[in-house]
Each structure stands twice: as C-alpha cells, then as structure tokens.
C-alpha cells in the first residue's frame, strides 16, 4: 500500500503551476549552461554541414559509429514515455500519475533529437529530403521502399506524431488551468492551445476517450519503432548484426534505458521543483521493481544474441563476439558496459532502501544509461570493424573525435533544454491527473462497503 497524502485542489494548482508562472534564479543558470553546450553543438553542427564528415574519426570500415550509436540511444530513451504512459494508463496503475507527462515529454524530445543524428551522419544532409519524401518526380527520385532506411524514418515520424498528440491530449485540461491563471501574451497562447476546454462533462469524456484510444494505438507503434530501428542492422549482411532476436532485444533494451531515463528525470524534477508531495519514494520504488524485471529480460535477450552467435557456429559471428569481448579496445568497454548496464544497478535495486532513495535511484539510472550507450556502441562498431572475411582490411582503430563527443553532449543539452523549456511553459506534472487521483482515492463508506468517491464513466 502506497503512502498517500491528501492535497487540496488549490494547492495542487499552486504547486504544479509555480514554475510555469514564476521564474526562479536557477532557471537562468541552467539555461545559460545548456545554452553554452547547445551553442558549441550548433557550431559543430555547422562545421559538419559545411565541412562534411572529415572531422569525425570514422574510417573505411567504421562507416557508422558514434552518431548512429547516439541515434539508437535516444530512440531507446524515447520508449519510456509510451511504456509508462500507455501501459500504465491502460492497466490503470495508480502510481503513474505524476510520471506520465515527464516521460511523454522525454519521448518527444529524445525522438526529435534522435532524428537529428542520421541527418548529421549523412554525407550530404541537404539532400536527405528525398531520402524520405518523393519530391522530384521529373527526375524520378523517390525513396526505395526496400531499404530499412526508409522504414525507419517512417516509423519514427509516426511515433513522433503520435507522441506529440498523446502529450497534447493529456495537456489540454492543464492548459485551460494555465489559461485561467495567466495574462497577456501567455494567456493568448494558452487559450489557443487549450482549444476552448472548459471542463464540461462532454469535454472530459472526449479527452479521456482520446487518451485511452491513443494509448492503445500507440502501443503497437512503440513496439514496432524499435523493432524497425533494429532492422537497420538486422536487415544487413554484417556479421554480428543478424541474430533473429534483434527486434525484441532492441525493444526491451529501449525500455530498459528509457525507464531508467525516466527515473533520472523524476529525480531531477523532484529536486528542482520540490515536488516531494507528488513524486514520492513510492514512485521510485515502483520504477525500481519495474526496472529489475525489464533489465533482467533485457539481459536474457542480450544473452540470446550472444548465444545464437556461439550456438550457430557461424565463424564470422563468433569472430565478432571475440572482438567485442576479448580484443582491444572493446575488451575494456565490454566489462564496463556489463557492469554499468546490469551488474551494478540491478543487484542494488533488489534493496528496498535503494529503490526508495532518490539519490541512489538517480545514480543507478544514470549508470544504466551510460551502460546502454556503450551497449549500442559495442553493438554497432565492432561488427563493422571486422566485417566479413577480409582480415587484411579489418580496422579497429576507430576513436570518436572531440567533435563527436561534442555532438553527443549537444543531444543531451537539446533534450534537457526541451524539457526545461516545456516545463517552463506547461505543468510538467498533469494537474488534472493528480486531481483525478486525489478524487479516486477518496473513499466513501456506504453501509459496510467502501467505495470510491467518484464513479468513472
């Protein structure tokens, strides 16, 4: 049984709209810090667009590396949003309420950021337009639908679009509250965005149905997106990329890193917005339990990938695993990855004290994402380094260059800034959802039975 405090509706409004309506000092400090990284990242971005990929550490073998690693990483992070929102919403898990919006926002921004990566990574980014959109009929330039690189942006676009809608539908009631409490330009913006939501019964009903429908519809998208991203690899002939478990392995890996990222995000939100009343230790406890299950499933799939390679006795496959595990430079990365992605955090999560400690959850979830970033790196780079049976051409000297690290930092800064700016404009914890939770928790004694104070439609 989770702890629960009764909060009044005005207090909820005050607490949760405090940040959107008032600007604390640290906001500017954070904005300046993130702005610096974004500025530096933008310059690198411009250098890349102007000068091409020559500044990267890529080589004739490692033709995909950090940027694609980072792409898969952010796609993975994006999976938490829907995982938390949709599944928990459909199963009516109570503890979801303060978590959902943050998670959804994380989805939107990490997806948008992820999509920057392939564009940056391509040799001629200004031409990527016809990669996805058939526009030049006269020269018969249209995408080749046989290519996984056409499926993957299609899936991601779909996912991005549905996530935006998902967030938006959930946001409408809160927008109406913000509208009522703001003046001037902001008032106009909130008013337009709230689309005349007044909280009538019909409006509430429609909003709830839309939410549930979107939850149900987005689930297959969520599963397919990372499956499709996995096909970028699984469809290729590169040894080490083919095992048949790739799609579920990618999906569960994404959930692992995504839920961890949500935990990190919640810890940060709780600290900076003083939301102890809303994001409680119970939430971290629940996330911790979920993570133990998800990460262990992920480890199982990881083991399957390894096992298929070994068991099939495909020598190239075995060679790639040998490179990943035993040969430099990956022999250093590999144990680090296993430790950070599983061996350190998961045993810790078995302890209730750890799960209920914001600090511990913050650091262990960060640890997981460091590990999962390395996992993608180890997944992508070594197979390309020793691709096929041409040992004369094998090259394992790929080293990410400063500009690559800067671009990685850039993506973190964009996502953080996105969330920060979003929470500056909109309540990061859904007011209505919290209130609904409050109401649902109120129970009424009717005779000898205890019934909810509010009966759902």
């Amino acid at each position, binding site marked *: 049984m989770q702890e629960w405090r009764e909060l009044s509706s005005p207090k909820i409004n005050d607490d949760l709209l405090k940040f959107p309506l008032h600007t604390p000092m640290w906001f500017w400090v954070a904005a300046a810090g993130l702005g610096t990284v974004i500025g530096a990242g933008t310059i690198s971005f411009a250098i890349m667009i102007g000068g*091409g*990929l*020559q500044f*990267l*550490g*890529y*080589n*004739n*073998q490692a*033709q*995909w590396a950090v940027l694609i690693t980072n792409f898969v990483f952010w796609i993975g992070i994006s999976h938490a949003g829907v995982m938390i929102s949709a599944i928990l919403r459909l199963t009516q898990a109570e503890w979801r309420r303060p978590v959902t919006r943050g998670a959804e926002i994380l989805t939107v921004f990490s997806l948008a950021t992820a999509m920057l990566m*392939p564009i940056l*990574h*391509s*040799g*001629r*980014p200004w*031409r*990527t337009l*016809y*990669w*996805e959109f058939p526009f030049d009929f006269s020269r018969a*330039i*249209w*995408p*080749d639908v*046989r*290519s*996984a*690189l*056409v499926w993957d942006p299609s899936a991601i676009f779909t996912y991005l679009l549905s996530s935006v809608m998902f967030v938006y539908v959930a946001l409408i009631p809160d927008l109406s509250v913000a509208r009522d409490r703001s003046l001037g330009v902001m008032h106009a913006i909130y008013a337009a965005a709230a689309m005349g939501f007044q909280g009538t019964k019909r409006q509430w009903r429609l909003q709830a149905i839309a939410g549930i429908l979107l939850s149900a519809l987005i689930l297959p998208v969520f599963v397919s997106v990372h499956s499709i991203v996995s096909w*970028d690899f699984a*469809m*290729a*002939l*590169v040894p080490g990329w083919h095992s048949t478990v790739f799609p579920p392995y990618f999906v569960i890996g994404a959930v692992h890193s995504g839920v961890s990222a949500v935990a990190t995000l919640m810890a940060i939100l709780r600290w900076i917005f003083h939301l102890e009343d809303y994001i409680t230790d119970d939430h971290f406890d629940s996330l911790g339990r979920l993570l133990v299950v998800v990460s262990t499933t992920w480890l199982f799939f990881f083991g399957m990938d390894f096992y298929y390679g*070994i068991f099939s*006795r495909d*020598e*190239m496959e*075995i*060679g790639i*695993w*040998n490179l990943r595990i*035993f040969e430099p430079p990956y022999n250093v990365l590999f144990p680090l990855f296993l430790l950070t992605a599983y061996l350190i955090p998961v045993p810790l999560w078995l302890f209730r004290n750890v799960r209920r400690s914001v600090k511990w959850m913050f650091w262990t979830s960060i640890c997981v994402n460091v590990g999962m970033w390395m996992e993608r790196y180890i997944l992508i780079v070594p197979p*390309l380094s020793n*691709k*096929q*049976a*041409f*040992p*004369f*051409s094998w*090259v394992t*000297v790929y080293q990410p260059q400063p500009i690559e690290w800067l671009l990685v930092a850039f993506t973190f800064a964009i996502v953080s800034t996105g969330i920060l700016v979003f929470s500056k404009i909109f309540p990061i914890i859904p007011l209505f959802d919290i209130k609904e939770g409050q109401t649902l928790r109120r129970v009424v004694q009717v005779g000898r039975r205890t019934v909810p104070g509010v009966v759902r439609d």
Partner: protein
Amino acid sequence: MADAAQAPVQSGAVDSLHKWGMVIDVDLCTGCQACVVACQAENNIPLNTADHFVKHRAMEWIRIERYWEGEFPNVKARFIPVTCQHCGNAPCEPVCPVYAIQHSTEGLNVQTYNRCVGTRYCGNNCPYSVRVFNWEPHRWPESLHAQLNPDVTVRTQGLIEKCSMCLQRINRAKREEARQGRPMADGDLQPACAQACPTSAIVFGDWKDRNSRINRLANGTRAYHMLDELGTQPNLVYLKKVDPNYTGHGPEHAGAPAQHATRSLPVISG
C-alpha cells in the same frame, strides 16, 4: 564453373547485348599495384595522403590484399585484387534509400553519385568492403587538374564511390560499336586496371560472348566466386591460386609452409 556464364541476369533486366564481367586470376597477381594506380589515373580518384592511410580512409577502387601464411622461414604471402564484384544479387542495392545504386541491364552495379545522400548503408552491406566514402573533398593542386579525365565526374564530398568497371570506356566502346556497325571483338574494350596489369591477372569481357576469354577461363576448374556462400552472385570470377606445395592447415610438407596456413577464429569451431 559452368554456371558462371549463366551467372545472374538480374531482376527486371531486359535482354541486352552485353553482360560485362571480369576474371581475376589470383595465380598471376604479383601485388605490383599497377592496376591500383591505373584506376586512380583513369577515374579521377583523389590523392591519398599519409594522413588518409593513418586514418584508414584511403580511397582505392581496386585494392590488393596480401595474406600471410606461416612463420619465418616457411612463410608465404599471397596477393588478391579486390574490387566491386558487380553482384547480380547485390546486397548494396536494396538498402539504398534513394535508389542511388542500380543494376544496369548489362550486369553492372552502377552508382549514381548525384543521388547519393551519403548514408553509407550500402558501405556496411557490401560484404566485399569495396564501397569507399569520400570523407574529404577531392582536391588537387591546380596544375594537376590538367591530368583529370574529362570522361569521369569528379565526385563531391560526402558520397560513396566504387569501381564502375570503367563505365566511361564501356559507353565509348558501345558508341564506337554503333558507329562502325559491327560488334566489338573480345579484348577491344578494357578497363584501366585490366589494361595495365602486367601479368594479365585481370581479364575483362562479355559473358554473353560465348567465346570470350572470360567465359573460357571461368569454365576451368580453378574458377570460384568470392564469398559465394552469401548468394551475392558476383559478376566477377576468381581463378584459384595454384600452389603445388599447399598443405592447407595440415601438418608437415617438405620444404613448404605448413602450419598456420590460415587461422581459425577463436572459441569453438567445427
């Protein structure tokens, strides 16, 4: 290799007069690099600097791989030229999101530089690692521009390049054929690498010409397709290296390298 002649006529290919191909006789390659430099001269391939080699970004459309066998003094080194196999079932083709790669009706794997957006997916998927990305802009000192071949585009930065089987020469020969109104003879047309190769390790020809040298060579017992097991249906046929003293990985043989002829990949093997 009886099937080499019927080697792939790929999907949708309308019957055309020619189907180009090459036979590479591994027994003849001496590693001299004449083909490599000839290809660079013919195809406006940028100058490879020391830095390119250090970063492993050197651009060669045809490369000579050298494999060691054994230990001193029973040591051997063997050379094999590797270039685009112009696969009939090319793994590089369907992965390109923008149709920059197409199989020509004459059996060539054609790269359309104009279209390429530089995703390098094809580079990953080419099992022969012959697709080279041009990481840096192609630059020559002004005076060297005089040498550039006007028949071949100078590629811009950010796309994938590879052997075209000297398409410009094929086009020219076909035009010549049309003008003279008679079919060209086997050997009239040669790509730069085959033309230069001092030992004739590279032979170019038309699979559709039953009497062409490549057909006759590919019918011998030494013919094989590189990485045949992948089902890429290469348009290039290799002829095995002949080594009367070869013992594979078996043990002793008088005076010839025996041990460590090849290596086995680690962990368990069959």
